[in-house]
């Protein structure tokens, strides 16, 4: 991962819309809490130096991610995040 803006890259658009968040709030045998997140993202435009358009990613139908998190010392940590349905 890099900080793209440092070399003249940036993104425009891509607003997230969290449509639903569901969790049973029970710990799995790995000590994690699972949450399903249904979200959509608006169109994203990727720019490079000088305003060059690298890519335009259109808005897609809402997808579903699972986040597995642990809670320690008053802080949540996302241990794993995966897309499980698109």
């Amino acid at each position, binding site marked *: *991962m*890099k*900080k*793209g*803006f440092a070399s003249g*890259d*940036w*993104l425009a658009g*891509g607003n*997230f819309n*969290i*449509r*639903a968040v*569901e969790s*049973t709030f*029970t710990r*799995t*045998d790995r000590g994690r809490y*699972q949450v*399903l*997140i*249904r*979200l*959509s*993202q608006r169109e*994203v435009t*990727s720019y490079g130096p000088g305003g060059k358009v*690298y*890519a335009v*990613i259109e808005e*897609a*139908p*809402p*997808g*579903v*991610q*699972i*986040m597995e*998190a642990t809670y320690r010392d008053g*802080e*949540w*940590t*996302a*241990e*794993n*995040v*995966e*897309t*499980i*349905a*698109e």
Partner: protein
Amino acid sequence: VKDGILRSFCVPLAISLSVVGSFALGVQVAIAGLEEDAEWIGEGVKFGGNWTLDPATNDWVDRPVGLPNSPIGYRYDVVCRVADNIDVGCMASKRSCNEAKGGRLVQWYAGLKTEDPATWDPAGESCIYSEEPVDVMDEIAGIIVREFQRRPVEAGVLTVQPSPHTLIRAHTNFYVKSREQIFDLELLGQDVRIVATPTEYTRHYGDGTSHGPASDPGAPVDTQSWGEQTATSHAYQETGDYPVSVTVHYSGEYSVNGGQLIPIDGRGEFTTGEQTISVWRSETRNVADDCNENPASWGC
């Protein structure tokens, strides 16, 4: 970010949501404006898992093989229906469904199965041709697995290296080339499309052993590497002729009259034709003469 793999992170949940979401939807570019204290470590954000809900624990588990269990539910309503009637004024601005008798426009909705279906999002429209569109959709849902399994799905092409002869105790490489296939059919008066996607493979080695289902279709190896072990190779322990084949497991989705694609709750299994592999033994000996000089020599 390279190859769609994002290193794991340890950040407050609110930040995690926004960062992760961009990757879920296929944006593989650097994140502008990521907070300075975001630290990316460990396991990573992944794509393409095989998640299913374990009924025993009610937890989601990522199993290496098996039919994934979609968390998304689908429903549909007849557009412009008020009680048991259609609002003609409302329908005036909608697309018409006049390709056959009894056409009705239905609106699809999708959302988490655990959500209240009333909160699901619109997911496109399609026409249904039936006096009772809801009934016909339920009937299709009830028979779609059987119809999927009846399609003439091409299992794929099995290649064995080396073939048709291989050596005992050497590793013989097996790989399969298969592809997504689309089938259009008419079912209960509706145009139904089935999309079959290969997901797993069971190799039958013909010597009483098999391997799978496994998600790896295997890959070709260079001739210089024949005999070496691969993720999908097999070493025969006896000489002889063996019929080999592969069963390819397909998952499916279907849509009705161009509407929402819905996962089919069941798999199709299709097997390649058998081919025969002859397993030979090789022996090496030193000989002094050629066969003209000594026709009784070993190997002549």
